[in-house]
């Protein structure tokens, strides 16, 4: 089966703290920080959107992979904040990384798991020899309705993964991937609506936990593996609490999920969430380490992956811009009004 030959991530430099948002809505900041296990989130600059984030991540992935971009045969971009309703983000990315025109492209939407769905599609194309390398990106500048609990978590960021099957290039083998999918109305955004709507506590058990737990269990069944076989695990992280909880239910320790648990300090990057978690985990993983990744997209579904880090990882590591470096890089805290301006919520008329 195909494996990961390179990856790259991107985060905007802007941050807003829970306290700053809570002040506006007269919320109890410490209750929110404890309840959601989050302290701050990324905010896109005025000149950033899901496409620019995707491009920055994709360029880093190409550099990490060390392959000519012209050999990438497919580019998929998963997002729920594609800048255009009609006109693909993927074409912006393919042009900006220079794949050449002989490339399959499409935008994907499956709430927060469109990027991992793209990885599955790329694996299929690579394994069937239709393409040499395939790229999938999860990138979002996610929207949270002002005053809603989601406003504390909805953030911006993305990660890009390139899959291929040249043994000497693969830094992590993808041993198995499965999906667990159902029609579940836990969270949605209608065409033309500015903000998503969610059904409160229903998003928990019937939404997130049912899919994440069942997908992970399905993967265990089909691979014969168990939590202790994995060095690390990454779960989709809509807040800091859900993934910790899911890990516990499945029998993972806090140490196993620690490197990939980013939401407490960057927020929920939606389509970027589990992919950034995987990137951060690969940043520190060593040859032979096993990683479980289970994404989640509302609507709803989860994709689970069993990933085994190879010996090639060290040789390529110097070309990586680690997620931890992106988290630290040039961090700039902004106030709520700048946040509104950056998001385009207030403009000069």
């Amino acid at each position, binding site marked *: 089966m195909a494996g990961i030959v390179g990856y790259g991530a991107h985060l905007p*430099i802007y941050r807003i703290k829970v306290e700053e948002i809570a002040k506006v809505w007269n919320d109890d900041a410490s209750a929110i920080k404890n309840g959601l296990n989050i302290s701050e989130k990324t905010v896109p*600059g*005025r*000149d*950033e*959107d899901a*496409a*620019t984030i995707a*491009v*920055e991540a994709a*360029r880093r992935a190409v550099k990490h992979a060390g392959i000519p971009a012209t050999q990438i045969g497919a580019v998929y971009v998963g997002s729920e904040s594609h*800048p*255009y309703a009609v006109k693909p983000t993927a074409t*912006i990315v393919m*042009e*900006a990384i*220079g794949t050449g025109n002989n490339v399959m492209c499409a935008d994907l939407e499956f709430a927060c798991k469109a990027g991992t769905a793209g990885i599955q599609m790329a694996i299929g194309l690579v394994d069937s020899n239709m393409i040499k390398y395939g790229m999938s990106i999860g990138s979002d500048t996610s929207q949270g309705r002002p005053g809603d609990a989601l406003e504390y978590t909805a953030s911006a960021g993305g990660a890009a993964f390139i899959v291929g099957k040249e043994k000497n290039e693969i830094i992590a083998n993808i041993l198995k991937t499965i999906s667990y999918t159902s029609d579940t109305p836990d969270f949605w955004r209608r065409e033309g609506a500015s903000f998503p709507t969610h059904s409160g506590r229903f998003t928990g058990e019937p939404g997130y936990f049912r899919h994440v737990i069942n997908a992970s269990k399905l993967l265990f069944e089909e691979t014969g593996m168990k939590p202790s076989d994995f060095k690390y695990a990454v779960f989709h992280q809509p807040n800091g609490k859900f993934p910790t909880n899911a890990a516990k239910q499945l029998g993972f320790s806090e140490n196993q999920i620690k490197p990939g648990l980013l939401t407490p300090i960057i927020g929920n990057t939606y389509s970027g969430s589990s992919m950034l978690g995987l990137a951060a985990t690969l940043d520190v993983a060593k040859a032979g380490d096993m990683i479980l990744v289970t994404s989640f997209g509302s609507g709803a579904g989860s994709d689970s992956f069993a990933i085994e880090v190879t010996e090639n990882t060290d040789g390529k590591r110097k070309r990586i811009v680690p997620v931890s470096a992106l988290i630290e890089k*040039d*961090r*700039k805290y902004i106030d709520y009004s700048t946040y509104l301006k950056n998001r385009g919520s207030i*403009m*000069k008329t």
Partner: protein
Amino acid sequence: MEKPSASLWRKIKARYNLIGNECKNCGTRYFPPRIVCRKCGRKSKMSDFKFNGDGEIVSFTKISVPPDTFKDEAPYFVGVVKLAEGPQVEGHIIDNGGKIAIGTKVRAAFRKMYVDGDEGLIYYHYKFEPV
């Protein structure tokens, strides 16, 4: 909101990827690409050259009074950047908290340049960010 998009599309390789050109006759590099080499004229042999985007600020300004298209972006920094691989080019400089000064090293990034209202095109472009 019907705006012609061909003028953006025509130069998209240069605007996204800093693809300029190089005269194979004399080795001079240009960005944006030139049709004819300024040194070789009729003898010029132009061929695409992708700049790596590394450079240094030669001069800059912070624009406080913008043209209409940038009314929501002002103030913003623009500068003349000397690319490590040759030519001097103009571009936005991202205020990323780094020092914007003559001599500051920059690298090319990919950003939105401006947005044509609520229904028009989004113009993506290279910008420079202090390293």
